Every structure is written in structure tokens, then in C-alpha cells.
């Protein structure tokens, strides 16, 4: 049970009128909030609302332009992450900083501010793992661990410093539902022992389940504080995006069309040392359908996308078929020309060239289907016109087709890339993480465009780690785990727990838990 937090003690963390600007954007304006000892406090907001900047200020990565921070009632200046840790602030980042080729123990030792003899450190780690019943083997190499286990390394690293405030940045974005539940148990125990937790997320049902207080940010300002246990998710969501939520418009008829993309027994060895091998992948996506592929990151999603796009060739021509034509041996350009478009997860450097203008980035993948460069000469006029169309249709916030792709925010670049592919009316579109890092309004627009494209007879495959998104978008869903793909199931009537089990809750976790205790 959660103890009632001590109302008389000073706030563990208090921010008063904190502001921070970057050239061209006010990231935080006049932000005040307070976190009590032992409280799990949610920092809620959309991408770009200013959560990350605020957290970076608290953790000493960036400095506030104005405002005051106090910790345990004393005003403090947090000049660096090291100073933050010294005060008792720990942080688990969304993207872990771990060395894949080293063991858990070595990784933790590297992250500590003081040097501790290996044996002593091991004993201290064991003590923490036992007291929180966290399954983790200190001698395993990191690349053999699941994402949930990697996150535990970061948590243990923080707990070793006996923190008074733990910051968790979007901790569940890569976890299975079972892993999420286990993480929440751990966090509740940490809070019971008096450590405050600042929990950053935009997932409302999690915040309702975990947090006692919430500060909601929008466009760099605090728009509300509330008790999420008594607030409705609908209301919190509307506070967060500042408008009423629009629901996806879907055509009602769900008659399955002909198979447009068929994959049959696709095998592909993973790239050493950390790649995942694809094993006997079979599925088909039909005209008018959105097929979702769920799974925890690193289970072969990246490899599957490269195999479908033609960046890695399949061993046999008939392993991949487009409208019945074998294309397994065709390269990326030939597949695009034939009507198969792909959008990889990584935007900068993979889906787009950051140093090139948006117009130049159009040439990258649209020259096969649109008359942008017949006979090898790039036609500047049509290229710029198409870039302009994409910018207008997908509401890309930029100065125009001449802007460098790298100068756009992640969400805007994603809108541009999605628009570039959808605008070519591909017969089959395969897309990984279509709305990752995109704000809710733009995400809704991208999803709507996918639904519309499917309604025109294209087949769409969405590879995503965001289950909510897949459940909203997909007609059928399958799960990729350790390079194997489950059979597709209609989304209607599918239970969240079933998907979670398929995502690796069953075998991944339990036997590792045993080996950690052995």
C-alpha cells in the first residue's frame, strides 16, 4: 500500500517560474511544480510540449534561463548531471546508454561516478536485485538481454546511488504489457521507500494506474495539475492537446480484397553481431487492408523492413510477391517502380538525407514512380512542385522545398516522408513506426492518410511497437518475436493479454528470471 505522503515535510523537488528558450522556440515558460517525498508524479504532455527540456534542466543537462529550483526545501543550482546525482537525483533515459558487447556489471561500473571494486559492486547490485526482486544476471552480456532487462540495468544504476528523486523518461514505450506491470511494481516499491518519482509519459492509462499527481504541459506551459486517479483519461487527453480528440474515420465495409503483398517462408540471416535472423516469415496483405505487425524492438522488425524494401535481398525470387509477381531478387529501385514503397523507422540518414534539401530528398525515393528524372536528368521544376505538394498536403512546418531535411523537427520530417510515399499512390506501403515522435494532431493526420490509402485499394503493413496505434489502425494483427512471425488475427475481439504473451512475455522473461536466481 502507498503510505500517505507527509504533508508537512518540504517538497522533494520544487520548481518556481522556470523558463528556457532556444533560438526560435520557447521550450519552457514560467513552469512551477512540486513533488512531495515518496510521490509518483506524472509529467504529462505531447511530443514537443517541453517535457524533455524541463527534465534536462532538473537533471543538470541544460540550464534554465530563469526561475528557481529547490530540493528538499533548499534552493539549488544544478550545473551538471554529476551535480544532480550528488543531490540524489537519478534518471533513466528513454534511450539507454549501454555497451552491447559488455556485461551488465561492466556497464554499471562504467556509469558510476566513483570507482568501486568489482566484487563489492557485484554484492551491492545483488542486494538491490534481491530487495526489489528484479530478475537480472550481472554477468550476462547486454546484447543478449531484452529491452525490459536493459531498462533494469539503468534502474539499478540509479538505485546504487540511493536516489531521493528518480526521473523516468517514457519508460514503457518499448515494453510489453507484462513488462510494464513488472516495472510498475518496482516503481511503487521504490516510492514506498521514500524516493520520489517523476514519471514522464503521454500514455494516460498508465498514469492513471501509477501516479498520484500530474502536471500537464502544453506548448511549454503548465496548463493543469490534477490527481490522475480521479480524473478521466478523456479529459486529461483534451487538456494535453488543447482540443477535442478527433476519431479516425474508417470505411465500414471490411471485405477483404485480393492479396497484394505475399511473403512466403522468408529466411534471412541477421547481420552479426547483434542482428536478428528472420525465420520462415509468411504473411499476406490484401487490397484495402491494414495489417499490423506488433513486437518489442529488436525482434526482427528492422530486418523485415529491409527485406521487404529490397535493401537486403531474399534468397529466392518467390519469397516476396507483389500482385503475384515474384520480386524477392529485385533491388530497392525495381521494387518501388513495381509499386512497393517502404518507410523505415530511422528518418535521418535512412528515410531521408539530413544534409539535402526537401526537394533533393524527393528524388531519393520518388523518381521511380513519378517523372522527376526521365533519362537520368533531374527536372528541377517537377521535383520542387512535388515537394511543395507534400509540404502543403501534410502540413509540414518548414520554410519550403529548399529547407534542409535535417533542420526539420522529427515529427515534421516524418510527415514529409510519409507524404512523399503516400503521394506516389503505392500499391503496397510498408511503414515502420509511422507516428513515432509525432504530435497527436499530426499522428491523427498520418493515420487518416494511411486509412484513406487503404480505402483506395492499396495494401498497408504497419510495423510498430505502439500497441494502441496498431489496435486503432489495423484490420488484422500479427506479432514478430525473435525473428518469427505469428499468424495474423483479426483485431476485432483480440485481447491485450494475448498480444502481450505473443510479444515475448512467455518465454523471454520467465526462463531468464530462473537463470538469474539460479
Amino acid at each position, binding site marked *: 500500500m502507498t503510505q500517505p505522503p507527509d504533508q508537512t515535510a518540504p517538497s522533494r523537488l520544487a520548481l518556481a517560474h522556470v523558463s528556457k528558450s532556444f533560438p526560435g522556440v520557447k521550450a519552457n515558460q514560467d513552469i512551477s511544480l512540486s513533488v512531495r517525498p515518496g510521490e509518483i508524479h506524472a509529467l504529462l504532455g505531447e511530443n514537443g510540449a517541453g517535457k524533455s527540456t524541463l527534465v534536462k534542466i532538473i537533471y543538470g543537462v541544460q540550464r534554465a534561463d530563469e526561475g*528557481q*529550483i529547490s530540493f528538499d526545501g533548499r534552493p539549488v543550482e544544478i550545473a551538471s548531471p554529476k551535480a544532480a546525482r550528488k543531490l540524489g537525483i537519478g534518471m533513466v533515459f528513454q534511450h539507454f546508454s549501454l555497451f552491447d558487447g559488455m556485461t551488465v556489471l561492466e556497464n554499471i561500473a562504467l556509469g558510476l561516478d566513483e570507482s568501486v571494486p568489482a566484487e563489492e559492486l557485484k554484492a551491492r547490485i545483488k542486494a538491490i536485485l534481491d530487495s526489489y526482486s528484479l530478475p537480472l544476471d550481472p554477468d550476462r552480456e547486454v546484447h543478449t538481454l531484452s529491452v525490459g532487462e536493459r531498462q533494469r540495468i539503468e534502474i539499478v544504476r540509479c538505485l546504487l546511488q540511493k536516489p531521493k528523486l528518480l526521473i523516468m523518461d517514457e519508460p514503457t514505450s518499448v515494453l510489453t504489457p507484462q513488462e510494464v506491470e513488472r516495472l510498475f511494481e518496482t516503481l511503487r516499491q521504490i516510492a514506498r521507500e521514500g524516493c520520489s518519482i517523476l514519471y514522464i509519459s503521454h500514455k494516460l492509462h498508465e498514469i492513471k494506474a501509477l501516479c498520484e499527481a500530474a502536471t500537464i504541459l502544453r506548448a511549454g506551459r503548465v496548463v493543469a495539475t490534477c490527481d490522475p486517479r480521479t480524473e478521466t483519461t478523456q479529459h486529461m487527453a483534451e487538456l494535453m492537446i488543447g482540443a477535442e480528440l478527433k476519431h479516425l474515420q474508417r470505411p465500414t465495409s471490411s471485405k477483404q480484397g485480393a492479396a497484394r503483398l505475399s511473403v512466403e517462408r522468408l529466411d534471412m540471416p541477421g547481420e552479426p553481431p547483434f542482428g536478428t535472423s528472420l525465420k520462415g516469415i509468411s504473411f499476406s496483405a490484401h487490397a484495402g487492408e491494414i495489417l499490423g505487425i506488433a513486437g518489442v524492438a529488436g525482434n526482427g522488425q528492422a530486418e523485415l523492413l529491409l527485406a521487404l524494401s529490397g535493401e537486403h535481398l531474399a534468397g529466392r525470387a518467390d519469397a516476396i510477391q507483389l500482385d503475384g509477381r515474384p520480386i524477392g531478387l529485385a533491388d530497392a529501385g*525495381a521494387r518501388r517502380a513495381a509499386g512497393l514503397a517502404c518507410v523505415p523507422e*530511422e528518418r535521418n540518414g535512412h528515410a531521408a538525407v539530413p*544534409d539535402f534539401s526537401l526537394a533533393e530528398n524527393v*528524388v531519393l525515393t520518388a523518381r521511380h514512380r513519378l517523372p522527376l*528524372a526521365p533519362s537520368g536528368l533531374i527536372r528541377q521544376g517537377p521535383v520542387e512542385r512535388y515537394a511543395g505538394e507534400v509540404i502543403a498536403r501534410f502540413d509540414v512546418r518548414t520554410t519550403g522545398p529548399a529547407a534542409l531535411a535535417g533542420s526539420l523537427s522529427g515529427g515534421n520530417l516524418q510527415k514529409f516522408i510519409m507524404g512523399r510515399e503516400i503521394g506516389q499512390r503505392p500499391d503496397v506501403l510498408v511503414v515502420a513506426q509511422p507516428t513515432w515522435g509525432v504530435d497527436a494532431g499530426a499522428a491523427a493526420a498520418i493515420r487518416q492518410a494511411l486509412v484513406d490509402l487503404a480505402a483506395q485499394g492499396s495494401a498497408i503493413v504497419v510495423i510498430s511497437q505502439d500497441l494502441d496505434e496498431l489496435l486503432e489502425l489495423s484490420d488484422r494483427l500479427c506479432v514478430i518475436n525473435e525473428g518469427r512471425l505469428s499468424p495474423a488475427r483479426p483485431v476485432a475481439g483480440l485481447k491485450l493479454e494475448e498480444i502481450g504473451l505473443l510479444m515475448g512475455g512467455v518465454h523471454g522473461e520467465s526462463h531468464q528470471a530462473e537463470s538469474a536466481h539460479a
Partner: protein
Amino acid sequence: MLEWRRRREPSKTMLYLSPLIAIGLTMLTGMLVFGAIGFDGLRAVTAIFITPLIEPQRWADLGVKAAPLIMIALGLAIGFRANVWNIGAEGQYVMGAIAGTGVALLTHDMTGWWILPAMALAGILGGAAWAALPALLKVRLQVSEILTSLMLTYVAVQFLYYLVRGPWKDPDGFNFPQTKMFSGSQTLPAVAEGSLVHFGVPLAILLALIAWFVMSKTVAGYAVRVVGRAPAAARHGGFDASRVTWATLLAGGGLAGLAGLFEAAGPFGQLTPQFPVGYGFTAIIVAFLGRLSPPGIVFGALVLAVTYVGGEIAQSTVRLPSAATGMFQALLLFFLLATDVLVRYRLAWKARPARSAP
């Protein structure tokens, strides 16, 4: 305190200004260094950098020295754009000259308009063949082209020494290690009667225009740029990195080979052991001074040609050692790479830490 701040976007101004800053810093440093060891530093720098520009009788020489630098640097820059680091252009230059000279020796008793084009073609093929070896090793075995192309340079130079002292030695040459002089049909015509400036000079400018067009307006040029900037994106867009490696190395080798043949059939008129003067290495500086862009390379080649011509002037007037030219060129590359940081970063006064309100 000054500190470096990252720019939000690379600065266009600095992209073009930083080479000029580098030239300025080179002149200043050279002046101080030569002043410190007892020369008249100001006169030395003036002789090297200014005199060749203000004395019209030196201009023809500037053009003749700039032409091979332009041709080689164009080829190198195309490769550098694709992250293909061919630094063995000197070897390809020598092999082009050797292949072209081979044709010249075979056709020595003939006349005809076709001889010079045949020699040029042989020069291109010779240079390209020499660059094909690093390309093959890189594509098939992932061997670094930096090492292979550089090492092959020394093989080419030794091969040249062997030929001019052995099988190709002029029997009527008083035992000097050199080939026969080329005949009239084998020598590059001058652009005007009595001028030093040979046909290769305007051709180098024309090649720069062609290279600029290919790199900025065609899908082939786009492929080269995208493979260099973002290899994963290139693969995603359907471009083949191996093919780009082959194409850029063959183009670089071919251009270097053509430059070598023009030098042999122009200013030299034969092959001698003094033939490799380091244009292949200097062209690396030219390529970077020109920001890897063809118009910039024409400018960069002129600057380096000035240092060659000026170096000779300074030897006679200020009695600077001949190694001074090389030192100035090395300083220039050094400052060029150092000032490159200005494109992405700017110098700013360190901001005072934000004081929290009381």
C-alpha cells in the same frame, strides 16, 4: 571566455569564406616562420602569393600549372563526395602518361590527326586501369582504398623509372634516362601561335563545366552525393554503393591519366624521371580548397598554381629553399581543415551561467 557554439544550420557564408581565411592564415604564418629564420618574411610571401598575379608574363605559366591540377582534382572531388578516398592520383597520373607514351613510341614514325586522340584515350585507360585495382580490392575484399591507391603510386613511379632507364630509353639520348622526344603529331597544340598555353588548359575548364553539370543535375551525380552523405539512405533509395565506388575511382583515375598524358605531350614532350612532380597529391589540396565543387576547384587550382610559380620566383629573388613551396602548400591544407570548423560552429563569448532569481 570564448567558446564554440554549434550552428543550427551549416553557414553558407563560412563555406566560401573559410578557404579565404585559410589562405590568409597561411600567408601570415609563412611570413612569421620565414621571418623568424632570417629571411625577409614579407618579401617571401609577396613573391609567392602576389608576384605571379601581378606580372602578366607569368599568367601563361599559371594556366599550364593549373590545368593538370583542375583535371585531377575534379576526379578526386567526385570520389571524395562519395566517401571514396582515392589519394593515389599521382600514380594514376604517371600510369596515364606511360600508357599514352606507349602509343607515342609505337606511332613515332607516323603522322596523322588521330595519333593525339589515341594517346589521350590510352592515357585515360591507363589511369583508369591503375584506379581499378583499388576499386576491385575495395568492392570485393573491403580493403581501404586509401592504402592501396597510395601504395600503387610508388609502384607506378618505379615502373616509370624502369622504363626510362631500360626498354624505353632513347637510343640517341647520350645514355640519359629519358624517352624519345614526341613528334609534332604527338605534341599538344598551343591555343595560339607561340603561346605556352596548350590545348589542355581550355579543356580543363570545359571538363570542370561538365563535372559541375553531372554532379548537380543528373541522377548519376545525385547517386554519388547520396552514397557519400548517407549510405543507408542511398541503399533505401535504390542506389548501389559498389557501382558508385567503381564509377568514381574509374573517373578519378581516367581524369588523372588524361592530365598525365597532357603533361607528357605538352610541357615535357617526353618522359623523364623528373616527370612525377606531385600534382596528384597537390590536387587533394585543390579539391578541398575548392570545397569539392567544380567551380571552386578551378579557383583552388589557380591558388596552388600561384604557389608553384611563386615558389620559383621566391627561390631566385628571396633565395628561399625549393622546399618552401611544399611547406606553404602543407600549411594551406592544415589551415583549410582547421577553419572548416567555422562552417558548423561559431565562436561566441561564453554565456554567463543563469542566475536563479532570489
